Every structure is written in C-alpha cells, then in structure tokens.
C-alpha cells in the first residue's frame, strides 16, 4: 500500500472520514505521520476556537478586575483565581462529570459530555482566565500620560476605551499573550487524556501517538513525530502573532518596539 493511499484512508480519520479501523499491524512511518497529523485537526480546532472566544471574555474579565466597582471586580477576581489556581487536568475531569450529571437533569447538556463541546468550554474558560490576567497586567501598565491625553482630547467612555485604552493594552500584552496562545495549543493535548472519551477512536494527535506507542512498545518514533507537529504549530502561531505584533506597534519608532520573546510555559 502506497503512502498516498494511506493518506487518503487515514488523513481525515480523526474527524471520522475514511477507513474505520485503525491499522493493527505493520505500522509504517507513513501510518504514524498520517494518523498523528490527522489528530492535529482536533488540537487546532480546540486551540483556535478557545483562543478566539476566550479573547473577548478575557478583555471583559480584565476590565472587570481593574474596575473600581466591587460588583464587577469580585466575580472577575474569583473567576480568574478559580481557573488559574487549579490544574487544567482536574478541571477537565470535574467538568466532564458535572456535565454527565447535568445531562440526567436536562437533555440540553447532552452535547456537553462530548469532547468537541465540553472540552472546548473548559479550554475557553481556562484561556480566558489566563489571558485576562495578562491583559489586567497590561491595563495597569498603560502610561498615565496616554489616558490623560485622551481625557484632554475630550474622549470618554466607549470611544476612549476603543481608541486609546484597548489598543494600548493589546500592544503591551501581546508578547505575553503570544506565549499564552502557544501554551493553549500545548494544553489541547490534555483533552482526550482526561475524562472526555474519544468517540469511535477519533482522538487528537497525542491520542494517536500513544496508540502507536502502546502497540509498538516503541516511544521513540511516535512522540518525536508529535513533537515535530507541535513545533511546526508553534512556529505558525509565532509567525501569525508576530505579524499582529508588528501592526500593533507600527506607530512606534523602531527601537522602542516590543519584541516577542518566546517563553514557553508548562502544564497548567
């Protein structure tokens, strides 16, 4: 069987298109590359959606935490502490069993017990909390002069926020936020290792990597392949975020622009 055939059969296996049965013997390098790569679809799906949705919640939470009104501040602080203070792994387990219980109360929660929605919700809240903390830090370090200048120009309320505070906050937070994005993509590898079951063996990259490691008793092939894919993904994220960073900093002189320094993080 040629490699092209394998890619046709297993290239989209992770989302249920193609051959139903996973290969059981005669694992070739091509098998491993194709299946682990097809698992990456899930990692990208979780990472991309959680990041996009989380961005908005994070902005809201950061504004809430920086607010002087206790009504807004306290809930945001608690939310951030709850998700930053506990392991993501436990959050996944807890969420899964919580949704299982809720399912028996109301069928509305049925899709939440599946990874595609349930895990996404957890990742969404989690990244929102982490990003909110980064945005909050940036919010506090906006130069006083910028806000005073905005006041002097007669900007207030919403227009002051969208024209001065928010762009400056993003600009200051962007290097940290880039790392958070990379970190989130790494964290997506946890999904199918916690409570959420992989339905019909449609798992993410790590799921297939460990499948091969289990079957071949040889971790030295699948895990480096997984690492290769993740490094590739990380490079893409850095490129995209670097582009945005450039745009956010375009009004500044060359030497004062903030560079993104890669500071990979650990498990959350």
């Amino acid at each position, binding site marked *: 069987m040629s490699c092209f055939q394998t890619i046709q059969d297993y290239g989209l296996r992770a989302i249920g298109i193609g051959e139903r049965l996973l290969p059981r013997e005669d694992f070739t390098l091509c098998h491993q590359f194709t299946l682990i790569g097809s698992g990456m679809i899930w990692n990208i799906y979780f990472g991309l959606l959680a990041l996009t949705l989380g961005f908005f919640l994070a902005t809201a939470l950061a504004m809430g935490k920086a607010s002087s009104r206790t009504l807004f501040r306290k809930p945001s602080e608690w939310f951030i502490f709850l998700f930053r*203070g506990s392991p993501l792994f*436990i959050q996944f387990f*807890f969420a899964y069993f919580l949704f299982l*219980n809720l399912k028996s109360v109301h069928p509305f929660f049925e899709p939440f017990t599946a990874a595609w929605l349930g895990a996404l919700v957890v990742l969404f809240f989690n990244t929102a909390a982490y990003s909110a903390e980064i945005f909050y830090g940036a919010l506090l370090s906006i130069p006083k002069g910028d806000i005073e200048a905005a006041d002097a120009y007669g900007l207030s309320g919403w227009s002051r926020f969208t024209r001065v505070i928010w762009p400056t906050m993003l600009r200051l937070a962007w290097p940290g936020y880039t790392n958070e994005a990379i970190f989130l993509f790494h964290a997506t*590898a946890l999904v199918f290792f916690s409570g959420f079951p992989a339905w019909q063996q449609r798992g993410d990259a790590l799921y297939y990597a460990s499948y091969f490691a289990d079957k071949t008793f040889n971790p030295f092939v699948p895990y480096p392949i997984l690492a290769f894919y993740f490094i590739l993904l990380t490079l893409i994220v850095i490129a995209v975020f670097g582009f945005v960073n450039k745009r956010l900093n375009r009004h500044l002189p060359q030497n004062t622009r903030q560079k993104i320094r890669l500071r990979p993080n*650990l498990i*959350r």
Partner: protein
Amino acid sequence: MACYLTTGKHMSIYTSVLTVLLLLGITAPIALAFGFGGATAARSQIAPLRWFGKAYIAIVRGVPDIAFFLFFVIALDQAVEYLRHKVLCPDWEGPIRQGNDFVVCQAAKMPLGNAPQWVHESYGFGLAVLTFAIVFGAFAANVLFGAMRAVPRAQLETAEAYGMSQHQTFWRILVPQMWVYALPGLSNLWMVLIKATPLLFLLGVEDIVYWARELGGTKTPRFTDYPHGDWRMWYFLALLVFYLLFTRVSEIVLARIMSRLTHGQATAGGEAQRKATA
C-alpha cells in the same frame, strides 16, 4: 456519612494526597539541583558543557510537556532494563527489539518479576519523580540562568577587584544574590509544579485522580457496588478545592519569602522596604 468517609478504601485516597505532597517535596529540591546544574553548565567556560546546558534547556522547553511525561517514563524504563540486560545477561543471543516487542532476559526485568508489590509501586513513583525533575529542572535552569545574568556586573567586578578567584566570586557573590532575581520565576514554577501533580495519574501511579475516579463511581472492576450513585463529580470538586487552597497558601508563603529576600537588596523592592521602615 462521616463514618463512610473513613472506611479503609477511603483511607487510600487520603494516603494518595500524601503521595502528592511527597512527590512535591522530593521533586522540588531535585529539580532545583538539576536547574542549578543546567544553569551553571549553560554559562560554563568549557564549550561542550555549555552546549549541553543550552541544549537541555532548549529541548525540554520546546515540546509539550505531557508528551515528555509519556515519552520519558517508557524511555527511562527501557534504558534501565537495557543496561541491566547488557550487564546481567552477557550471553543472551536474541535481539532485544523483536519487531514490536521489547525483550530482555528475566534477570534484567525492572523491578524483578518476583519483587513484592511495594517495590513495583515505589519504582513507578521513582520514575515519576525523575521525569518531573528532568522537565522542571530545565525550566528552573532557564530561570536561574536569567537570574545569574541579572546580578549587577558591578558586584562581580568588585569581587574580582578584591582578588577573589572565579570560584569564590561565583559562590560568595553571585549565588547569594541571584535568589532575589530568581524567586519570581521559581515561585511561578512552584505553582505550575503543584498543578502538574495530577499528571502522576498518566504515569500509572495510583494517585488522587485515580482514587477519585474509583471511589466516586457506582462500581468499578476492583470493588463491587458502593452505597451511592455517581459521586465522581463531588470527588473531583473536592480535589479542585484542595488544589485551590494549596495554591492560595503557597502564594501567601512565597510572598513572605520574597519580602524576606528583598531585605537589603539593591532593587526597587528593597528600596521600597527601606523607605517604609525609615
């Protein structure tokens, strides 16, 4: 209720909490030692040692750690068995990798097939500690490497002017002063280490996650039915609260240590302390 929560089976979840604390207690110093070694190697005068230090930091930090956890445990296990195999059974003929199987002679099995249960358990635990130490050591090395560079040059130059040797400058000037720069990074790392402990579950150690799943379920392969429904949600809620409390306490303690360390340092924090007391 109170009686039910103190049954023998429940005792194992409490001991597994101790296991987690033990893991933290053992791993933190070892990882710090690895980090110190890595950072010293990375700034060494000898080129190969420096390359080794830098490569160690770069490789471990570049890859998702969970992959590392899964990879290292099998790899370390096989490495140990391979070495014992070479030493203990020199006249073994067959190849070790037979297709998809990893075959070593009986005497080289680790732990030995006839060893008691606790040896198996502590061997798994030891592998877990080593894996944690390798991964977290790289991160600690990065933090300490940065901290060593953050110590003001003038301090080191003064030491040299006083005629201290390289060795003396390192141990008497650089090391005592670097901690205040390293602590923010290290405390961050400690928080992450706390949150990494549930991964023990992935390494096959029967830790709190394992017991929460076992005891919370209505029935398991090992125990027959429990007098309650599906309580796994509540067990994981308890774990969640446990971790939240743990991080909270750590935050408070680390803030204390930080204020102790800043005392008398030539940093903005130290300056603020001086002004507050004056």
